[in-house]
């Protein structure tokens, strides 16, 4: 004979199991519905392939310390930041080629991001009267640039499309690129000048260029060329037959 209290306990446990099963079933259904709803909001259209366009690349040559303009055809996105990154990626692919005149390993993946920000004109800010070629207050200006890049990074295209004045390009290089870059004053300077000249040739509104490595300020590229200063892009473009 089963005691009465054990029968009651068994019935309570059975009812509890049934209730828990129902609750679990309902939770499963809700999760399934959330997943289905998420899939509905996902893009269903394949990304468009950008049309191939011509871009001017200023390719460095270690032998005679020169920058040589090359016309390359490559698919370029409409967004200026992505466009700049694609162009620099092509430039770095040339440098990573086995027979490159300016050998630098890394390739297109060496450029993490390119942000385009409104450039500070020499007479518009608190640095008025200081040398326009160099940051005399690097921390101040870098912080200002970092804050701006954070605010525009989420939707750089929208910001860029509303700009019409000169722009500052912030090129974020990867740490592996900087670590593997050959050390030397000439080779590092040529790399930076070729980036500046290429950006200015394809995005004429880019008048100033700054460099970051893994999102951080870095003193030099590979022990020589200064990465803390603002480079004037137009001055990097060589005149016909002249060295930079």
């Amino acid at each position, binding site marked *: 004979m089963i005691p009465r209290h054990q029968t009651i306990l068994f019935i309570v446990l059975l009812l509890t199991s049934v209730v828990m099963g129902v609750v679990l079933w309902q939770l499963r259904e809700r999760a399934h519905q959330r997943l289905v709803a998420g899939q509905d909001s996902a893009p269903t259209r394949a990304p468009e392939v950008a049309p191939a366009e011509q871009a001017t690349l200023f390719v460095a040559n270690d032998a005679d310390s020169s920058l040589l303009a090359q016309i390359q055809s490559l698919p370029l996105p409409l967004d200026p930041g992505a466009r700049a990154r694609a162009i620099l990626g092509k430039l770095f692919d040339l440098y990573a080629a086995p027979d490159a005149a300016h050998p630098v390993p890394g390739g297109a993946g060496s450029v993490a991001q390119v942000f385009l920000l409104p450039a500070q004109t020499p007479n518009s800010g608190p640095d008025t009267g*200081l040398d326009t*070629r*160099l940051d005399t207050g690097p921390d101040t200006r870098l912080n200002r640039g970092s804050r701006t890049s954070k605010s525009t990074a989420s939707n750089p295209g929208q910001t860029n499309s509303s700009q019409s004045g000169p722009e500052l390009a912030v090129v974020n290089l990867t740490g592996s690129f900087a670590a593997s870059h050959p050390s030397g004053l*000439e080779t590092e300077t040529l790399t930076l000048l070729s980036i500046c000249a290429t950006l200015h040739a394809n995005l004429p509104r880019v008048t100033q260029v700054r460099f970051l490595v893994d999102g951080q300020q870095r003193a030099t590229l590979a022990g020589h060329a200064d990465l803390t200063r603002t480079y004037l892009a137009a001055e990097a473009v060589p005149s016909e037959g002249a060295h930079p």
Partner: protein
Amino acid sequence: MPSKLEIRPFSAAFSPAPRICLHLCALAACAAALQLAAQAPLAPAAPQPRFVVVLDAAHGGDDPGGRLSNGQAEKSITLALSVRLRSLLAARGIQVVTTREFDSTVDLNRRAELANHAYAAACLSLHATESGSGVHLFASALAPAQPARFAAWKTAQAAWVTRSLALAGVLNSALLHAGFNVTLGRAALPALDSMACPAVAVEVAPEFASGRDSSHAPAAGLDDPGYQARVAGALAAALLEWRTDAWRMEAARP
């Protein structure tokens, strides 16, 4: 014991014969003085103005610089070149200040401080690289600016860029005359941009017979003592010419 003190003219204190001798002596003294005055322009000139050269052997200590193909570090080559050049300049009577004499870590700001305290007539920042060929000369990429009483540390070189370019021209001529392949350029180098003196970065690369050709071995490597001696000799000759120009400018100054 004299009753009163008699005051007589100095000449009257002597008899006529000694007075004639005194006049003759005075005439001789005047003649000697005139002769000295006439010879004054031919006398040895005033001491030449101070001429100090600062040699900055880049990197050192914890900072090896670039790694060269033979396994050597850039810091060793720059120090060897600095020592050679210092000896050559000292032998020619030029006062030399070096930023390091052995394998030690020297901060970039400290290098510029040493150069600025020396009031140098020329500052050479010595580098070495495996890329390129011959000797690369770089002046600061700063835009020329008027000298100011208080210059910003990071742009102190701006007031000296014109002189630095002139120094680079003299170095270029001497190196070309010595048969080197030379490239001239402008670069942003932190230590150089803080120097308040005519300053040029000298980067020495291996020497190739006819430009850079990776399929051929270099005619002279960076660790070749003969090559280093040739580079140092050409740089010393250029600095001697720079000193002559500086003295000429000093003499022409009113």
